[in-house]
């Protein structure tokens, strides 16, 4: 078990290093930062001074090492808009984004999992077909269309909720519901097929043939085994929630990281974009690590297999 | 100088046996020290039961898979398995006819395109209409109708498909052809037709060939010389008449006795082999045949007999020591 954890953590760290390096490469590839920030008509002395100040006159590997050191210390440059530290600018938006993504993830799981399990258990019934039909939404309705439609219905026509902004719990309802419904549809579909696969396995049939009550077969065997593939999709959901937040925050003028990213991209505020990119990268790596560790905990077979394969 | 010369060819596979926590590692000796020469225009028949390493030998000789050790030379130059430009160029002179004609053909191309493919590959300067004309001639020579040119493999019968494979192998008139059980997937009635076709073609084009089969009668019809394989090694080699009428090796004797003779004159007792069928993973020490050999002696368990000449043929058995040398200990 220890070897397994070590293996996973090492891989996570390696991925982080790759992400930071890629960010560096992209930053350098995108052109001369001095010209980009000062403009093409800047006087040469100014460009020179800028280069010195940012260490751009040093060899590339020195820049790379310095960049790495700066990332570790959390020193990621200043926002070009208001001159404040980019990390600070981003950091103060994080709680707002968490305030809608965490409830949305819970909603995904709370609706998606039971719907998928039930659809599998009542396979080919009207109930199954209804769930599968509704869940098509998750793949065909973009989140901005879903958000605007809900907003039109509940905010504009029925005037039950505010259509945008932040401050009260009511403001968070529409963003959370939008992301919640779409994610739930994806999870429901996936859970259903994972569950169907498990139900088709010989050991399930053996268990029920041995006279184990059906309800126990489901809870003891089927759910436990379907949980494993389903966990991977929930790890993947973190990624699509992050991407979804970018759009949904813009739809509802919710001042989180996603909206910040959109304005930063539009203004080409590279320092802020870079911080957000690294932040999301770290989140993804952490989510995948968490899923891997959970995996090892739930499924001991997995653990030994990977540990020996890695050794 | 022989056209093809094979020396001490070996091919071992690393395998994992199932069972146990990790699966035990083992060596599978598919081919384990095969040597022979092929003169220009000669046909060597290779017989042996399933799994004795015939196909592996065929692939090694053509350089389709790398050898663990040993050498193959073709017309004076070494045959390697590095699939580079030189290797590809050599294919022009050496071709293979496969056991399963349907599997060896592309389902999505008309057969004429596949027969013409060697020409397109090796003589790209030949214009398309000339290539088609040549394909037409080849098709006629293997007994395919001109109107079958546009057919797809699944639209042909098994025998016709094998004719397509033969036509493709012969398209550039190669010097050396390996036929790996070319008729064993076909109905008996069609087998004879295809064998006759191969004989005719050989008469006309005069290629050298290695002809593999587990059917002694087929090998006898097709070969100038035969070699009998057992567990990756040649145990007896010589002219077909001698080998099949007066087999010297106990394994060959058992094989020959198993041929159903139409005129049952009761001349031969059928020798039934005892013991487990041969397994190339746990190759017995000494003579590989000793666990099943009716004449096994004590030395057979320890010393591996070497292939020794006896007039026109060669035998690897302690019952037939080399005329001069006597016992030769194998390593």
């Amino acid at each position, binding site marked *: 078990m220890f070897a397994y954890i070590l293996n996973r953590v090492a891989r996570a760290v390696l991925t982080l290093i790759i992400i930071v390096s890629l960010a560096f490469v992209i930053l350098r590839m995108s052109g001369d930062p001095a010209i980009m920030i000062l403009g093409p008509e800047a006087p040469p002395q100014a460009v020179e001074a800028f280069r010195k100040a940012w260490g751009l006159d040093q060899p590339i590997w020195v820049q790379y090492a310095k960049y790495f050191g700066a990332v570790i210390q959390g020193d990621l440059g200043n926002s070009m808009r208001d001159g404040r530290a980019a990390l600070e600018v981003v950091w103060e938006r994080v709680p707002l984004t968490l305030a809608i993504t965490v409830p949305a993830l819970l909603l995904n799981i709370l609706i998606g999992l039971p719907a998928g399990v039930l659809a599998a258990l009542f396979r080919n019934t009207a109930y199954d077909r209804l769930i599968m039909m509704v869940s*098509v939404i998750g793949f065909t309705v*973009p989140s*901005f269309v879903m958000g605007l439609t809900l907003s039109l219905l509940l905010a504009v026509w029925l005037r039950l909720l505010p259509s945008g902004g932040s401050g009260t719990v009511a403001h968070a309802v529409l963003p959370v519901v939008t992301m919640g419904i779409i994610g739930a549809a994806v999870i429901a579909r996936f859970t259903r097929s994972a569950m169907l696969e498990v139900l088709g396995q010989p050991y399930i049939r053996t268990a029920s043939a041995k006279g184990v009550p059906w309800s126990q077969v489901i809870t003891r065997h089927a759910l436990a085994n379907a949980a494993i593939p389903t966990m991977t999709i929930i790890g993947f959901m973190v990624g699509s929630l992050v991407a979804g937040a970018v759009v949904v925050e813009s739809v509802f003028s919710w001042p989180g990281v996603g909206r910040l*990213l*959109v304005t930063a991209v*539009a203004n080409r505020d590279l320092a802020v974009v870079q911080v957000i990119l690294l932040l999301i990268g770290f989140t993804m790596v952490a989510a995948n690590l968490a899923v891997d560790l959970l995996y090892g905990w739930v499924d001991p077979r997995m653990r030994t297999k990977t540990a020996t394969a890695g050794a | 100088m022989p056209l093809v010369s094979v020396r001490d060819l070996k091919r071992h596979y690393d395998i994992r046996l199932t069972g146990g926590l990790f699966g035990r590692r083992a060596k599978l000796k598919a081919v384990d020290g095969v040597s022979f020469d092929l003169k220009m225009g000669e046909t060597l028949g290779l017989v042996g039961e399933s799994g004795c390493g015939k196909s592996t030998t065929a692939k090694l000789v053509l350089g389709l898979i790398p050898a663990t050790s040993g050498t193959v030379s073709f017309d004076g130059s070494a045959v390697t398995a590095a699939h580079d430009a030189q290797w590809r160029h050599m294919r022009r002179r050496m071709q293979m006819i496969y056991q399963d004609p349907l599997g060896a053909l*592309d389902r999505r191309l008309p057969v004429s395109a596949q027969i013409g493919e060697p020409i397109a590959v090796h003589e790209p300067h030949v214009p398309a209409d000339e290539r088609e004309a040549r394909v037409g001639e080849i098709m006629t020579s293997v007994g395919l109708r001109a109107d079958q040119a546009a057919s797809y493999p699944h639209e042909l019968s098994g025998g016709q498909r094998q004719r397509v494979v033969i036509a493709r192998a012969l398209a550039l008139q190669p010097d050396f052809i390996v036929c790996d059980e070319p008729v064993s997937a076909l109905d008996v009635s069609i087998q004879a037709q295809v064998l006759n076709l191969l004989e005719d073609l050989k008469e006309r084009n005069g290629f050298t060939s290695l002809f593999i089969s587990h059917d002694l009668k087929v090998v006898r019809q097709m070969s100038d010389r035969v070699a009998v394989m057992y567990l990756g090694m040649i145990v007896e080699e010589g002219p077909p008449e001698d080998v099949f009428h007066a087999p010297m090796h106990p394994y060959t004797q058992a094989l020959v006795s198993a041929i159903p003779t139409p005129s049952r004159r009761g001349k031969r007792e059928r020798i039934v082999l005892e013991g487990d069928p041969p397994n190339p993973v746990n190759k017995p020490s000494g003579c590989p045949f000793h666990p099943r050999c009716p004449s096994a002696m004590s030395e057979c368990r320890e010393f591996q007999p070497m292939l020794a000449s006896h007039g026109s043929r060669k035998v690897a058995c302690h019952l037939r020591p080399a005329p001069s040398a006597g016992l030769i200990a194998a390593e």
Partner: protein
Amino acid sequence: MSTETLPSEQADAGGSVFSSKNVLRVFFEKWPLAVLLALSWIALLVIIVAFAPFIAPYDYLAISLTDRLAPPLFLGGGWAHPLGTDELGRDVLSRLLMSVRISIVIAFLSTLIAATLGVSLGFIAAYFRGKVEQLVLMLIDAQAAMPFMIIALAVLAFFGNSLMLFTILMGFYGWERIARIARGLALSANEQGYATAVRDIGASPWRIYGRHILPNIASTLIVSMTLNFPEVILLESGLSFLGLGVQPPLSSLGNMVGYGRDYIQSAPWIMLAPSVVIVLTTLAISIVGDWLRDLFDPTLS
């Protein structure tokens, strides 16, 4: 049941097997209604892509301040502007037709790029094996680990935006799935006799992969391309909605929704029309993709 009817059943039906009712049933089993509708919608889209400027009743950029915010037919508007007009008096129908054209063309080109990239890398991995294959697999994992929308936003921030860059960028969406499939299929084709036989003739890798393996695995690749297409439309419209995709004066479906959002109170039709088109299009292509998958290759999950 569908094509062979038992004699007793024939008797029960009291007539020919070829009664019109039966023929219809056979037809719909083969071509389910949903698939037929989806195919008709796609056909309509193809016509729009080809002939948008001729079908459109107005120039999509023509401003007419006297006709501002005219409601569509279903909200009591007139035939002059069946889908209404926007804040500047531009005809929504005309804009919609042009936007469909842009969105579909971008999604189509991007999917072609993704397929080319994916198939090439998948084949390279299958041909070279070893270190090269490991590298490709690592790239695939890396691409799959990060949400593509975020990568796209970062690239747009760093390199700026142009229609060409944007289309190429969208072309990086989904390549990793196609690469994974192409690699798997090529590996199993290599195990099959036909590829080995062609190699043994002396054919070059180009010939083996281009003329033999590719045509043999094309149907599966086409299915996965079809399933990639609607996802590219969603991505493109999402970015365009945010104002970071297709730039004015050009307009894609996402742009129209983004623009219409500001008039959601006074003129909801501006955003509703393109939204409906997006949903119907992704739905239709997904249905056809699933149908093709079941038809060609039941093993592709």
